[in-house]
């Protein structure tokens, strides 16, 4: 049921951006590593101190930069290292999930899971499940949509979506 999804050579494979809290879920993912559990390689994790730090902007930014799914991992209710950060995350999540759905992003593309430091297995299960779901949904491809939208203009003098990296690349002669 939860076999590691096979990588797809050359063809599209979903990209999943994860925001894991330092104390529970990031550690659980470390544990999954130490226990050599195997899961889908599509996940790219960003470590934050607490799920309460997950700014809804991060979620939208990830989608807009090409994520097919976003996973947030935090400590179980009552177990937050910072007492209540996970509740704040949950409260935001309940509305942002509905809002992105209004904006055409399927609900399954955004998921919040409570994964304690001991639940390496759950990291594996959740990631594999979500990657399977994303595969079934197909690409979200927001950057590609931006390009398609912009193609209807005869020309653009200014990049519609300003990129940071363009500005931050500095020559170092």
């Amino acid at each position, binding site marked *: 049921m939860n076999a590691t999804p096979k990588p797809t050579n050359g063809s599209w494979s979903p990209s999943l951006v994860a925001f894991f809290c330092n104390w529970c879920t990031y550690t659980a993912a470390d544990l999954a590593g130490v226990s050599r559990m195997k899961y889908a390689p599509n996940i790219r994790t960003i470590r934050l101190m607490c799920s309460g730090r997950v700014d809804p*902007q991060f979620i*939208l930014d990830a989608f807009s930069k090409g994520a097919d799914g976003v996973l947030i991992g935090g400590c179980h209710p009552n177990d937050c290292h910072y007492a209540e950060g996970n*509740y704040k995350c949950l409260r935001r999540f309940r*509305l942002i999930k*509905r809002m992105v759905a209004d904006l*055409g992003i399927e609900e399954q593309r955004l998921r919040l899971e409570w994964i304690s430091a001991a639940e390496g297995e759950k990291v594996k299960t959740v990631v594999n499940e979500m990657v399977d779901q994303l595969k079934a949904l197909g690409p979200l491809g927001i950057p590609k949509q931006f390009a398609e939208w912009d193609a209807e203009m*005869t020309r653009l003098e*200014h990049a*519609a979506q300003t990129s940071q990296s363009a500005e931050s690349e500095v020559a170092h002669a």
Partner: protein
Amino acid sequence: MPKPKIGIYWCASCGGCEEAVVDLAEDILGVVEKVDIMFWPCAMDFKKADVEAMPDKSLVATLLNGAIRSSEQEEMAHMLRRKSKYMIAYGSCACTGGIPALANQFPREQILRYVYEESPTTVNEAKTRPQLKFAEAGREVTLPELRNVVRSLDQVVDVDYYIPGCPPTPKITKAAIGALLEGRMPPKGSVLSPDVALCEECSRRDSKPTNVAFTEFKRTHQKHLDPQLCFLAQGVICMGAATRQGCGAQCPSGNMPCTGCFGGTDRVKDQGAKALSSFCANIAAKEADEIDQTLKGIPDPVGTFYRYGLAKSLLRRKAGLPMSNGK
């Protein structure tokens, strides 16, 4: 010495911004004294060809209001950009898409169908739609094409400054024109209003309790609004804390909550997401069901948090909408 030349142009907007210029009242005379308005289709009889004939960069500035959603607006934006030293996005629609950008939630076809066929006040049994080209008696007339996507001005041309507001207040308009004339413009890309959220200049700020712990959200028509108390303390969404100041808190003074027309601060990529984050975090409930119950008071999060900014939000438009090519 010749007076500096400026242009004023109207794209996809309600016209309120034009009105706002007029609202400078007697100050408009002062402005007219100091500048030559070379192009203002709404108020003065100049032709497009007149501007086209001018050398590039011969206008000091163009104040362009309205979002860009038609081929004509696109073309005019490019032309005025070429002719102007400074391109200034004037008003919410030009800055961030404004109300027209809420159309980014729907496919163009649906909008056209509703407007020309289905709206309750429309009688159009032949289902006639505007055509891009129409020839009769050997004469051909054209209409601009409506684009699928509504854009802010800076998503089409390079913009030097932004004067936000729906519409911008006379105060910031005057200040901007003053700065322009005196040549003390801030760095390119600046928004010409203070980069602090509205609460600072709101008279209701001190009435807000430290912990509002929302148990319900009410919309303005669902509640008798207290004329002094912070709207958040009344469970009414007020975008003030997520919106930059400069308007003098006009809406709260008129007993209406801020709806966010000035846009977010320079630190914020997505005004709506930030507002959502702040309101939600302050909900009292801890269980998913109870949280959802509280959030029932926000039936339309996109309309609430992106009323003026959907085009410039991180997602810009509803994903997966069809792109039809206009005929």
